[in-house]
């Protein structure tokens, strides 16, 4: 199975493969693995570096990303409050300076339920599709989605509580999201209602911010409580079909997190902060099949791994623009 097909399989819920077979590893990667295994200088340097590492992480990308989520959502709110018609509508569908935008998953639900595609919706969907192909697919999740921000705060709380034994992370099978994606698609077709929209925390939050809060926020609060005490980042990891929709878009996106095997010291920090650590499987010792690897389509391009990586082995890259690509 090639790397692309494998990354799709993993996004849909497949377990990441165990250590790759020797024939699948490039010669360059092999020699780097070999060097790391045998070179005493490298090992000594690694041990020394680990001791000297600061405990605090950078928050460069975190700050940029939180700013992005807040600014994008504030644009919707302020544009309506002050009637400037810059961004009209909400995250499910909008006009941005007059141009139609439609959230891909919301548009998909409408198309499946209504079974008729109005030209404006098609224009909005294609516009947004192209936009997120350019911007990295699931980067929608971590750079725009308001629920993502709340879930991040819930996650921080969860980790604090878990450290004191007050919360446990009950993991689930990631294939659940794929299954639910299919179930909600079928439900939309069969019932003729946009069934998923009635529980989508993204739509609920976006509308609540713009048009005022309502009862629906209770559902969102319930989800957050579940994530704080019972299952870390459960909605984004195991349930949200919006994430999978943008994940598909991300398969062909040039924006990705690039991994450099040669400089990596395999601390594993990146996988502990990552919401979708299966995309960083190759950072495990001897797992990389090439000297440069790319995080798969399920990667939300949040940059947490870039921030925590002590050796700068993970970095954002735009394919075709960077020299190394």
């Amino acid at each position: 199975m090639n790397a692309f097909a494998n990354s799709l399989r993993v996004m849909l819920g497949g377990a990441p493969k165990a250590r790759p077979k020797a024939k699948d590893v490039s010669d360059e990667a092999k020699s780097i693995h070999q060097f790391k295994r045998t070179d005493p200088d490298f090992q000594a340097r690694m041990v020394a570096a680990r001791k000297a590492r600061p405990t605090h992480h950078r928050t460069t990308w975190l700050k940029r990303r939180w700013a992005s989520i807040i600014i994008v959502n504030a644009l919707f709110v302020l544009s309506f409050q002050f009637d400037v018609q810059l961004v009209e509508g909400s995250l499910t569908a909008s006009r941005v300076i007059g141009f139609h935008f439609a959230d891909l998953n919301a548009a998909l639900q409408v198309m499946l339920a209504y079974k008729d595609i109005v030209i404006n919706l098609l224009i909005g969907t294609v516009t947004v599709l192209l936009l997120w192909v350019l911007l990295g697919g699931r980067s929608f999740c971590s750079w725009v989605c308001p629920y993502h921000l709340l879930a991040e705060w819930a996650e921080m709380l969860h980790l604090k509580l878990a450290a004191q034994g007050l919360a446990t992370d009950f993991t689930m099978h990631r294939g659940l999201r794929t299954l639910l994606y299919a179930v909600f698609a079928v439900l939309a077709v069969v019932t003729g209602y946009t069934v998923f929209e009635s529980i989508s925390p993204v739509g609920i939050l976006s509308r609540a911010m713009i048009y005022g809060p309502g009862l629906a926020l209770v559902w969102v609060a319930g989800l957050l409580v579940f994530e704080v005490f019972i299952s870390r980042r459960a909605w984004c990891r195991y349930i949200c079909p919006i994430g999978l929709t943008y994940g598909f878009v991300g398969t062909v996106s040039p924006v990705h997190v690039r991994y450099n095997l040669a400089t990596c010291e395999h601390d594993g920090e990146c996988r502990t902060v990552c919401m979708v650590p299966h995309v960083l499987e190759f950072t495990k010792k001897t797992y990389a099949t090439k000297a440069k690897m790319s995080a798969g389509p399920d990667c939300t391009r949040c940059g947490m791994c870039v921030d925590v990586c002590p050796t700068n082995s993970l970095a954002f890259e735009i394919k075709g623009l960077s020299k190394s690509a």
Partner: protein
Amino acid sequence: MATAKKPPKPPAKAPTKPSRKQRKARREFLRSAAAGIAVVGAALMGFLPVIKEWTKRLRPPGAIEEHAYLAACIKCGQCVQVCPVEAIKLGDLDEGFGIGAAYIDARAQACDFSCDAVQCVLACPTGALSHDVDVKEQVRIGLARLDRPNACLARQGKGFKGPARGADFDGLHRYVEVDRWTPIRVADHPYNLDLCDLCARECPIEGAITIERLHVDLTDLRGSPVVFEPCVGCGMCEMMCPVDPPAIVVDVGRTWEDV
């Protein structure tokens, strides 16, 4: 090796206990199944209010048939943003699949077509508000009906003085004779009528409601609102009716064929 004599089978043992890893995977599977069922179940709860018609809503002008409307509406609220009298609101969780879908509470704020060109229809990106509707006269979202004839002031021969819905009413209306472009508060526009005809007077559709005299005797003022086919169901009559609860109401989704 296959032909080699095997040692006698050990006595049947209880099946081997699943390993820790297997048990973990099994628990994870069960949790996932439970979570999946809970999520789908929660979403399907949206059926209840829709089927039971717990909240039967007057939809904005141009709205297509209710089931198709809920399918087509992408729940974005662009119609809300363009309405000059802020008549359009969005459904909440208790409306099930109607969550985020636009509706009008006519008694609180009806559509008086202040925008002239059905702006909400133009704003709708999905055709939930049909673009076949170009002018207000083509709208059919309901039909007015005299619900409590005995409460109607006109039928009692009574006039009306003061603001139609009291001084605290926040509803807006564009009075062309006051300001051609900007709607003002109904509370800031008091009336002084010998015979109440507010429903007919403020109806934005020509020929939809008239007050028909009840008696040939010209000294007897009494009259009754009568709704005719041009009625589009905007609900202005329901908003303006000064008695509470209103004597005249809009029946959601009713058409002239149902009469």
